[in-house]
């Protein structure tokens, strides 16, 4: 790993300097992860009696719970839509505002502003936006004759409505990463390609896209983490409803842990979440990581 010049051996000093930060990280990340896993294998203590080891029973119960299954299914769909949609929109936005054009700075700002708002503020704004009859969305659909739709109250539209919120909130953030890497592409490449008579589409597919590989990997991983770890809007806008139609995994964990006080179910669901997240991250690295090294 890099050069070792300037490194000194300092067994005690090294540990002392690292200790405070490591203590906090172990106490609130690594430790709780292990403890959560352990408690997912135990039964809940009832009336002062400690629950015994039950193996995978909590997981069996979890996968027999329709509201968990619904949250799991919702979350997979949610990730499957919001991750590629945000990333693709971000790339299109970046390509759009990369070149010289009228009002470029203003457009970039429009795209990026939602990113700076707290998810809770975004949720409040979209609650208003989605309000039946009053909201702009509904007024527009009425204009084209689609009639009143209770976007957040209808089980068939609640999840897509949450996806729109998530995409709106994060696409602009990913755009700045694409913009930065687009600007890092040496102009010489474009000149060389046009001398060779390569078409714009060919250049985009064979040069631009591969060069954006590392950015795509980073943005995809971030979007995936967001898809499983951000549920502020669910808490605020639908509380997972109607009928679990918009519940996500972390929201299920939150409800199990703090409304039903079912700590072991919450623990098992957390582990499922962590496993899915790790598998997806590994998959993304395998998929895009290789291309990154080929460049």
């Amino acid at each position, binding site marked *: *790993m*890099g050069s070792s*010049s*300037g490194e000194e*051996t*300092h067994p*005690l*000093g*090294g*540990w002392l*300097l*690292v200790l405070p*930060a*490591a*203590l*906090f*990280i*172990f106490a*609130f*990340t690594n430790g*709780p992860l292990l403890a959560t896993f352990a408690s997912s294998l135990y039964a809940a203590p009832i009336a002062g009696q400690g629950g015994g080891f039950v193996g995978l029973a909590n997981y069996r119960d979890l996968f027999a719970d329709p509201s968990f299954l619904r949250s799991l299914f919702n979350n997979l769909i949610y990730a499957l839509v919001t991750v590629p949609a945000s990333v693709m929109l971000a790339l299109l936005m970046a*390509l*759009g*505002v990369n070149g010289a*054009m*009228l009002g470029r700075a203003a457009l970039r*700002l*429009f795209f990026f502003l939602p990113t*700076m*708002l*707290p*998810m*809770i*503020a975004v*949720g*409040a*704004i*979209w609650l*208003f*936006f989605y*309000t039946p009859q009053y909201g702009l969305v509904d007024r527009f659909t009425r204009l084209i004759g689609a009639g009143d739709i209770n976007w957040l109250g209808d089980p068939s539209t609640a999840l897509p409505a949450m996806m729109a919120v998530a995409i*709106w909130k994060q696409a602009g953030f990913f755009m*700045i990463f694409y913009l930065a890497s687009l600007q890092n592409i040496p102009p010489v490449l474009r000149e060389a390609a046009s001398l060779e008579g390569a078409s714009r589409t060919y250049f*985009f597919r064979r040069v631009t896209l591969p060069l954006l590989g*590392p950015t795509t990997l*980073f943005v995809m991983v971030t979007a995936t*983490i967001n898809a*499983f*770890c951000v*549920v502020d809007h669910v*808490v*605020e806008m639908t509380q997972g409803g109607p009928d679990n139609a918009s519940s996500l995994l*972390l929201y299920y*964990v*939150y409800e199990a842990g*703090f409304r039903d006080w079912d700590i072991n179910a919450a623990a098992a669901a*957390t582990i499922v979440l*962590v496993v899915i997240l*790790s598998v997806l*991250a590994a998959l993304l690295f395998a998929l895009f990581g290789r291309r990154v090294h080929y460049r």
Partner: protein
Amino acid sequence: MRRAFSALPLWLFGLIWALPLLYAVWSAVHPPVYSTIFDPLAPLTWRNFVQAWNEAPFARYFLNTIFLVCFTVFSQCVLATLAGFAFARLRFPGRDLLFAALLLQLMISPGILLVWNYREISWLGLADTIPAMGIPYLGSALGIFLLRQNFRTIPSELDDAARLEGCSLLGRLWKVYVPLSRGTYVAFALTSVAYHWNDFLWPLVVSDSVTTRPLTVGLEIFATPDQGVQWSLVTAATLLSSAPLLIAFLIFQRQFVQSFLRAGIR
């Protein structure tokens, strides 16, 4: 990408993208009757902001958030400086293994382990306190990682010179490494400020009273009452609580974007 894919369609798309925000601004600066009526002659007013400010303890929420963010980001910087320096320049047993273990936090944030972390915070007797909202984040893998990367790029000749002058380990860290890493500190601090200013779920779990509630939790309570929402007040409160970060962003746009880029490419 053809030239045609610029100007007009892009502007139309940008306008649609801005609609939710523009709609919120419209309703916040007009009297409630005009909330959803787009009359260009509608009178402008500040009363929604004043009324929202008075109807909920937003001043207190602001103070709570500012205290939370300052406490968290400052502590993160101190701890990450010490650890980042050790990982960058000192050799000690178990170093690489420990470093790898800490990086787990880049993917699994303390926020998703909220049930167990809440138990820990309760055991410590810290439930419903402002520090409790920051404590799980005080050791920051991102901060350690960014500072370590930067410290490694600092020429060891500078370090050696300081050592010859009799500087101690911490003295060298403070006099050589910290001043040469200002950009990294700004990048990490801005990213972390944005994160903790906007954080919601963990503070929601931990806080249970006006004296500890941060802005995000206060706003959520204000925005989702049991009955009868007055939208002009909600949108005013929403803009109010996002304003400091938005204004800071508008002024220091370049620095913010640069910081996010620096903190992001890992």
